[in-house]
């Protein structure tokens, strides 16, 4: 086995080439992910961000952006903008609106179709993502065929944020949601397309929650705790008035 070099994540700009060979063992297969481009026997960056890897085999560029580009099997939140006999047209924030078949719901048949109004929110999985075709969605799990949490999001409130913030919210130990959870109960659905759906028992808590999440993007874990504490205290003071 050949010697491999220790890799440290670093900032990379579009156009910079990376040679990954020196970090891998002979038998390893390299997989490149978001932000990297394989062209003319060279791997180069096409986005600015931090070059990261997993096990020296999977490489990607970690960066945040605002515009969503659909990718297979990502969970997204969409808004129904039109409906026909066979499908719903759903806005997921990408360049083209997505299609959601009326049969792509748990237990749906030709006779028993889900009844979604225009403007309704759905939590769905991207089942087709191809640059030349319109994206397609499904509200059933790929493996079990069950709903698994997908489907219409009733009530609640939708906020938009950057894709990077959404990704960090999906971390089970994310400081912002943990800190908020210590104060009151809430329900969330986080789409990879920069949309977060929130539902609480009380409207004032929904407002607090959406403000706290939007504010948290550039704060450290310690600062988030402090901010949530202040927001909760302020909302309690307002209640008393």
């Amino acid at each position: 086995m050949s010697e491999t070099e220790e890799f440290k994540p670093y900032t990379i700009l579009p156009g910079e080439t990376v040679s990954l060979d020196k970090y891998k063992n002979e038998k390893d297969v390299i997989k490149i992910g978001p932000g990297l481009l394989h062209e003319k026997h060279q791997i180069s960056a096409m986005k600015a961000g931090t070059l990261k890897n997993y096990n020296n085999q999977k490489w990607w560029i970690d960066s945040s952006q605002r515009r969503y580009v659909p990718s297979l099997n990502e969970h997204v939140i969409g808004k129904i903008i039109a409906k026909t006999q066979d499908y719903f047209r759903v806005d997921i924030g990408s360049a083209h609106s997505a299609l959601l078949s009326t049969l792509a719901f748990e237990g749906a048949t030709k006779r028993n179709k889900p009844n979604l109004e225009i403007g309704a929110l759905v939590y769905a999985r991207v089942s087709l993502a191809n640059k030349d075709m319109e994206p397609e969605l499904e509200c059933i799990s790929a493996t079990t065929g069950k709903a698994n949490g997908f489907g219409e999001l009733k009530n609640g409130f939708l906020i938009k944020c950057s894709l990077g913030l959404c990704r960090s919210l999906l971390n089970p130990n994310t400081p912002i949601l943990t800190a908020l959870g210590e104060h009151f109960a809430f329900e969330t659905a986080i789409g990879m397309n920069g949309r977060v759906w929130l539902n609480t028992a009380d409207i004032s808590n929904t407002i607090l929650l959406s403000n706290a999440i939007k504010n948290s993007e550039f704060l450290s874990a310690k600062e988030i705790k402090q901010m949530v504490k202040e927001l909760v205290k302020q909302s309690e003071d307002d209640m008393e008035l």
Partner: protein
Amino acid sequence: MANEVLREDKRTNSQLRPISSVLSSLNRADGSASFSFGNSSVLCSVYGPQEVKIKDELLDRATVEVNITPQIGIGSTTEKNMERIVREAFSDVIITSLHPRTSISITVQITQDEGSIISTIINAVSLALIDAGIPLRSTLLSVTCAVQEDGVILLDPSNEEIKNATSTHVFAFSNTSNDIISSESTGTFSEEEYFKCADICKLAVSSVLKFVHSAIEHKLQKEQKN
């Protein structure tokens, strides 16, 4: 170079004005950046890949639109010409084939024009495209220089210096190959002067690149605090 004659603003001939930039300054655009060389500054926003008008739709690649608005009033032929330069410079830099049937819309607002404005615009557009996460083949950066009547080449000229110049040259370089990606010259000049200017600008662009690198690094640090 102690005996070199300083310019009006106390710079040496091969000195850039102080560079500054702000990334993601607009919160509704997909990407935005402001960039300035001294008092020349522009604000740029990028939207896309987004829905495209049917008449502009291209089946195999994204449509790149560039809009430049002057400091005062509406755009004239000067701005149309600058739009052309920017669009042509970025046409090979943006990997448009990755987002067919979409539009990438670049809007530039000139906030102050104190010379070398095309270079300022190109740098701002580069930063805004990076901020928007648009796939790019390289990072394109630009610097201008002006040849005076006595043959002295001034880097990053002000409006006054451009007025007194026999020729001005705008060069844009990519960070990958060090080749000239875009070049725009006005006035009369010799071949020798042209290549001398290219060499001087190439050298100066590397310091702009260093600045851009640290600006991006700073933004990433802010994003990845936790």
